[in-house]
């Protein structure tokens, strides 16, 4: 299997798993379940796309879950304490999330910290900040007040595409969540960014070989800071979608989401060695995790087994990419020996 064939392995496996559950899991192949899958995992996929940018640079962003919590609590504070209209809250939250990500980038670039250490530090700092500024701590009655701002609540709408297309008499199409539409837009945007722009090429170059890229004149510092800013902004978008779905934010929001995002990105073919990966890989990885978890719950499999299976899928994905890399290496070596 070479590089190109391997890009079809994940979509094929996803389709296979999906078909398996359609047949064997009761109520899996229903419009309601597809809706749940889309609504429940769209924000995971968005965080996974964001996470893939630092990973492409051979770094990692462990603070992404904390940034989700930070963005969420800022949404709550601005809506319920300061009574800002939703139209102002949304851009403000995105700016906060982007800045939080940029701080990661700045720490890594200017203090020369390892990404693991830098984002671990900001993870702790942001979690603490969340508790400090949380409206639910300052005004306890807010912990039982839902957010009702129309612009924010509108982020959780479902589009009735069945009636829009006029086919609702024949088949029941799932309602399309706005979060899924946003995911697709971001996916297309970032994939174009990665493949067709100078920044995307620079990203792959820096991830593949940082020193060579720097010597080639690429602004590695700017690329790094931008990558972590993108990661933070994606976390902010996911936070807004989550808060709309929950009508509130908790201080523990996004706990453990960094690990899910990293798993989704790695399953999606983004190499932890840097320089290899796409934007659609993490999305497929996130939905693979979603299909497996929802399907197993409907099959009645206990959640502990589910977690074991998730680990197994992650392991298989990593092994597959290592095998391909090893085979690629052998082929390149053989070609060099034959040619030179």
């Amino acid at each position, binding site marked *: 299997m070479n590089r190109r*064939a391997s890009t079809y392995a994940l979509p094929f496996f996803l389709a296979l798993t999906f078909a398996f559950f359609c047949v*064997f899991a009761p109520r899996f192949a229903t419009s309601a379940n597809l809706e749940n899958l889309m*609504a429940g995992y769209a924000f995971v996929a968005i965080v996974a796309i964001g996470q893939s940018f630092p990973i492409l640079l051979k770094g990692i962003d462990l603070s992404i879950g904390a940034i989700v919590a930070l963005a969420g609590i800022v949404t709550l504070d601005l809506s319920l304490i300061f009574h800002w209209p939703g139209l102002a809250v949304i851009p403000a939250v995105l700016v906060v999330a982007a800045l939080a990500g940029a701080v990661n980038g700045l720490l890594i670039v200017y203090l020369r910290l390892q990404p693991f250490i830098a984002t671990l530090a900001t993870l702790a700092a942001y979690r603490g900040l969340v508790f400090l500024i949380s409206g*639910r701590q300052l005004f306890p009655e807010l912990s039982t007040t839902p957010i009702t701002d129309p612009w924010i609540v509108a982020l959780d709408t479902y589009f009735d595409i069945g009636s829009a297309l006029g086919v609702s008499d024949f088949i029941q199409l799932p309602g399309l969540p706005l979060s899924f539409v946003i995911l697709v837009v971001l996916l297309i945007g970032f994939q174009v960014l990665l493949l067709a722009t100078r920044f995307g090429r620079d990203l792959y170059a820096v991830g593949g070989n940082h020193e060579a890229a720097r010597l080639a004149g690429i602004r590695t510092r700017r690329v790094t800071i931008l990558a972590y800013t993108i990661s933070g902004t994606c976390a902010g978008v996911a936070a807004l979608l989550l808060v709309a779905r*929950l009508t509130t934010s908790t201080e*523990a*929001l996004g706990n453990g989401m960094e690990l899910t995002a990293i798993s989704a990105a790695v399953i999606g073919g983004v190499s932890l060695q840097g320089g290899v990966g796409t934007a659609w890989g993490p999305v497929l990885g996130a939905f693979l995790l979603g299909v497996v978890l929802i399907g197993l719950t409907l099959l009645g499999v206990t*959640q502990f087994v589910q977690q074991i299976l998730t680990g197994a899928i992650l392991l298989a994905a990593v092994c597959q990419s290592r095998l391909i890399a090893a085979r690629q290496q052998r082929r390149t070596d053989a070609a060099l020996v034959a040619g030179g």
Partner: protein
Amino acid sequence: MSEINHEAPQPKRRGFIKTLVAGSVTAGGAAAGLLGDVDPVDGSFGMRQAQAQANAGPVKMAFIEWQPHTVPAAWSKGIEDVLKSQAGVQYKLLDGQNKVEVQVSLMDTLINEGTSVIFLQPIDSVALAPSINKAKRAGIPVITLNIDATAPHAAHVEMSHYYGAMDIARVMGEKMGGKGDVAILNAPPGIVIRDQRTKGFVDGMKKHHPSIKVVADQVADWSRKKAQDVLATILAAKPGLAGVYGVNDSMALGAVDVAKEKGLLGKMVIFGNDGERDALESIEKAELTGTQYTDVFQQGRFAAASATVLASGQVPATAFKKQAHLLMPYVIVTKENVAQIQPSQRW
């Protein structure tokens, strides 16, 4: 170099075939799904009436817990006691993994699956409200355990947090002789139980023993180890502390550890809340002074009994204009009455 050229045409074809297969499988699966359920037995598919399916199959109930812990495990055991004895009822326990979005996703899955009744221990009272409303619209009653939700639902069964804490304050004050300073070892902020238990304790002290002062209220994260550290710090600042109230038993036992270490066992009155097995044993050994004991198995049984009535279809979920609030009976356990709690009731 030539080696690479030979490889070039084949992967394209292989890739194309794979896409074709993958595409048709997905399309087939999606089409099957959109047209209705695929019957795994005879492979047929088509529109099914949800009602017919619900009547045909077993009655499904599920409990979404916060995360694995002694309390939800005991509830689940109590629920099973009532449900397993009935033929035709399927019950399962689901782990919320301490994440609200996991609980929301599990609620969605259960609603889709045609569950008859959902037991829920919400991680957050507001965040689960949209899911509870969704369940209500689908005609599924939701019973919450210990932690209430802001959306009105069928029933809420709790350990009587507020009144229990008031009674703890009363008994504790009597043990302290009506005067002195107390410290509270509290739960992490943002959890409704914390506010109910703290308010109950403070109100109870004001009502029964107004000369007792609450001099410290520190967070000890529900944990025994953290409580040891926190109390040691408080004692350094206020060595004359007469009483300690741990908002759960683990924290109270941490206070006991510190008291033992400093030789203050007879001089400090320590109360917990919950009634765990370890706490009861500690009371028997005259270390912990007392706790609020609720029969958690019974709490599960109450919830399951309500669920059985609701699932019989006689009372629809939409009939609940006002939410039922079931406060579990409790006992303020001290050395004098701890022997009343039977081993089979201990959890």
